[in-house]
């Protein structure tokens, strides 16, 4: 898969994730009466104390994260293509996103014993973005960007 194809896939996935995060954020702000939740216990998760991190609503953090990844992907596809700093930023963002997603999933499974369908979708999107971004490329001795 070419670097360009990977970045396009990251942009599209981040865009989908952005809509999911905005939806959950609007719900937390009271815009929607009830969450559309085909399976799982969305409202239990969204109403729990873990729905905030460092005082901020988790969906707001998700919105910023997906928006940031989207911008980085478009920058990498266009004006800042091939720049080292962009690779580093994308690597840090996607690794941070993955770790945060692991933390949230652990909270759902081990503490709340409730799973939110939207959180699962977001976790899958985050893993997909991580795998596509291949942040380990920035490590010393790794294959150069664009290879493979």
């Amino acid at each position, binding site marked *: 898969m*070419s*670097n*360009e*194809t990977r*970045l*396009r896939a990251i*942009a*599209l996935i981040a*865009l*989908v994730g*952005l*809509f999911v995060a*905005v*939806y959950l954020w*609007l*719900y*937390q*702000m*009271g*815009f*929607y*009466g*009830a969450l*559309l939740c085909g399976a799982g216990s969305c*409202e*239990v998760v*969204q*109403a*729990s*104390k873990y729905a*905030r991190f460092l005082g901020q609503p988790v969906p707001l953090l998700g919105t910023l994260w997906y928006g940031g990844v989207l911008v980085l992907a*478009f920058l*990498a*596809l*266009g004006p800042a*293509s*091939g720049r080292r700093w962009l690779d580093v930023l994308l690597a840090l963002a996607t690794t941070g996103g993955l770790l945060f997603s692991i933390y949230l999933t652990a909270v759902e499974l081990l503490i709340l014993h409730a799973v939110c369908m939207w959180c699962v979708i977001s976790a899958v999107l985050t893993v997909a973005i991580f795998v596509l971004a291949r942040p380990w490329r920035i490590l010393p001795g790794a294959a150069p960007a*664009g290879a493979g």
Partner: protein
Amino acid sequence: MANAKGKGGKGFYILVAAVVAVGGFLLMTAGGPDEVPDLAPVALAGGAIAADMSSGTAMGAEDAPAVIMEFSDFLCPHCRQFNGLSGKLLRQNYADTGPLKWISFDFPLWPESWAPAIAAQCAKRQGKYWEMKDLLFARVDGWSREGNPNRKFIEYSKDLGLDADAFKACVDGQETLAEVQASKAYGESLGISSTPTVYFNGEPVTRGMDYGNLEERIQAAAAGGE
């Protein structure tokens, strides 16, 4: 240099546009404050259903021409918004001295929602249900993060000038559990499954659950029009 406008760029932008269109459409149609379940009207006077209304907490004149019944969960964000804005103002402007009777029912949807409902009922025993209700919604970010939210509720009881010892015994002993259960059971008997659910003069409010619309209906009822 990689460029989104390069090979396959057109298809990529079509996909981006499609995701934006579908996502935007879903966000706008995902349901909103006006979305309500299909509920039957409630008889306001006489009969078994009316008798069960005693599980609610009423404010306003007994014979008020406008009656609003409200079912809320203390952890429901939209309940917080509705009570903090429209509910509080309508009660202040019309139920205290005017033509409105407001009956509030605790309807805990989640296991974590029972403790605040029990606390509100404990405050009711000391005549401060509405004050505690406002406080619980206003400070939900504080108590919902506590492993034992009763500690926070007891602090709030002091803020409201309640007998803190009696309040503590009440919340720790879950002395008002039966009241909350009765309130919830009444809501379930009406077919309620989500919150907030609001009735105006026995009719479920299907549209316009905001201050302006409800105020218009209260004024119309006061003038004998509804």
